[in-house]
């Protein structure tokens, strides 16, 4: 039964990666010589909070066969807007950031759905433009967030391992999982991702779903940016490409495929926790920084190998040659 549940890569990849990383985390005291403290788990969850909303934003567009590069732009813009408008009322800052994210996302979604353009060039252009806008807002400098109460509040420990920031991130994943799991939206997104024309014919309102999807992606990314700026007590106009790349790695480890049509929020959650925990293991065991890069490279190489149709064919052919007479379905 477990075998059947794990049959598809959308469950196998996140389950295996989470298991491997959890075992490595549990074994890390053997290398570091120190016991694991609740503080280590708290740190892992803080890393998860920093990456999670971005991974959710990009992963959920990947399920529908799109690739939203602009999430880092929205992330930067959201962080800057929250800092500039939320000094007195942090909630107002978050609201403005989220509204901007929704507007940016919906506009992109409309362009992509209405004109049927591939999302990658559109969101790349938006990414550049949004970084430009964020630079313009801040004059190219980091902006300090003066409301220290909010900074203390978002990172306070709750039950030793949680913080409001990681709880909000977990809640966003839970919400996405419930909505996609218990309504037909989840199936519709996967249908849009695997065969857009067929899902249109089957009566899915594809255009509206895509606009909603990108609006959601924008909202989540802007929320992530706002929470991060509150936590750092400053907003950086250029977060660089690293967050985008890490979020993509998290989504891919979460069992989502770039071809679309596959994946679920819980897989994304497992993938993101894996990436965050990996970074924490490297920190605990004081391995050099490049180890993380090499680990990510190895993980992506495995994903490439699992995903590439050519390699799968090759493996099938080899298996067929070894076992003559047995029929092998490609």
């Amino acid at each position, binding site marked *: 039964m477990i075998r059947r549940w794990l049959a598809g890569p959308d469950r196998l990849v996140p389950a295996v990666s989470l298991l491997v990383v959890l075992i490595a985390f549990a074994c890390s005291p053997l290398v570091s010589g120190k016991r694991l403290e609740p503080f280590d788990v708290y740190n892992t969850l803080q890393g998860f909070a920093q990456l999670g909303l971005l991974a959710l934003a990009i992963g959920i567009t990947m399920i529908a066969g799109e690739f939203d590069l602009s999430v880092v732009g929205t992330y930067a813009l959201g962080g800057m807007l929250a800092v500039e408008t939320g000094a007195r009322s942090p909630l107002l800052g978050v609201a403005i950031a989220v509204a901007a994210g929704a507007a940016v996302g919906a506009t992109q979604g409309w362009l992509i759905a209405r004109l049927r353009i591939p999302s990658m060039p559109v969101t790349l252009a938006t990414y550049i433009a*949004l970084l430009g806008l964020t630079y313009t807002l801040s004059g190219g400098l980091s902006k300090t967030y003066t409301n220290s109460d909010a900074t203390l509040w978002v990172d306070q420990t709750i039950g030793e391992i949680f913080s409001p920031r990681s709880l909000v991130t977990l809640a966003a994943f839970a919400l996405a999982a419930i909505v996609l799991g218990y309504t037909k939206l989840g199936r519709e997104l996967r249908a849009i991702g695997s065969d857009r024309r067929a899902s249109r014919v089957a009566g899915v309102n594809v255009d509206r779903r895509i606009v909603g999807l990108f609006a959601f992606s924008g909202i989540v990314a802007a929320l992530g940016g706002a929470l991060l700026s509150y936590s750092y007590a400053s907003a950086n106009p250029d977060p660089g490409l690293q967050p985008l790349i890490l979020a993509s*790695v998290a989504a891919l480890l979460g069992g989502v495929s770039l071809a679309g049509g596959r994946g679920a929020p819980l897989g994304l959650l497992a993938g993101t926790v894996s990436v965050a925990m990996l970074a924490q293991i490297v920190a605990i065991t004081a391995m050099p920084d490049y180890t993380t890069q090499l680990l990510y490279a190895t993980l992506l190489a495995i994903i490439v190998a699992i995903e590439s149709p050519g390699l799968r064919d090759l493996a099938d052919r080899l298996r067929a040659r070894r076992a003559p007479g047995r029929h092998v379905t490609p």
Partner: protein
Amino acid sequence: VATASRRSPAVAGDGPASPGRLSGPFALGLAVALLLFGALAVTTPRLLTFDNARAILASAALVGITAVGATLVMIAGSGVSLAASQTATVVAMFFLATQQWGLWVAVPVALGSGIVLTALQGAVVGFWNANPIVLTIGTGFAIGGVTTWFSGGTPVYPEAHPYVVLNSTPLGLPLAVYVLLAAAVFAQWLLRRTTAGRQMYLVGENRGAARAAGLPVGRVTVIAWAFFGACIALTGIFLASFNTQATATLGGTLSLDAIAAVLVGGTLITGGRGSAAQTLGGAVLIALISDVLLLRGFSTGAQMLVKGILVLAVVVGVHLRTTRVLR
């Protein structure tokens, strides 16, 4: 089909089939934007001077060379590579680390490493049909990680300085500008006059059909990526010569800048359409607009904002034209 790519990219279509009611306002908006920009350009002091033209070409050169290579990869249907920055960085390190043996060793080592690293990725994409984005993110990590491992995170300094020759400016233009032009001419020749080049369009247009027709899909893809690797290596060499040292972040945002230039040139992201000459135009156009905004005293942020909007406008315009032709 490939001949259709000769059209100028920046002009918006005026009557595509499906989104018909959009194109009117879009063409109008683009015309207004072009007029505004023209007025801004003409009234900008010092824009139309030789010195400034030189500055524009010089700033287009480094990204332009990589973008010319990226054009072939995009035409052949492999999409984009997100590992160009890291590859350029590692090539720059090899180039500076081998300076004591002279340029006759350093340049081939640099070109060779760029070609091998990139062609290997091309082989995985071409023969095994791997997803180029996942693959190049992975190789980016691998190259970056190994680079930091061996360099110990410290900058690489050259032991001798034969590379200063590459910073010379014959006839007042940086050497990199000549290399950019040569790369664009060579790429254009490759695309138009060689079998492999013609096959790149066919593979990019429809991979399955190309394979069914017996075209060497894998080999064509590898050739496109190998040329891309050579272009990245050239960029890396000039980056190294210009900075006289190589740090882990030398490549900067090269990957995305190159993609932006290719897209502004009007090459189709899904493949099968585009040209190296258009990419050259795209790179120069981006440099020109940044230059005008700079002379006008706009901030870096405003330059990036306009660049993003320009990429978006061209992508939408090219897409509308293409769909009109195809439907």
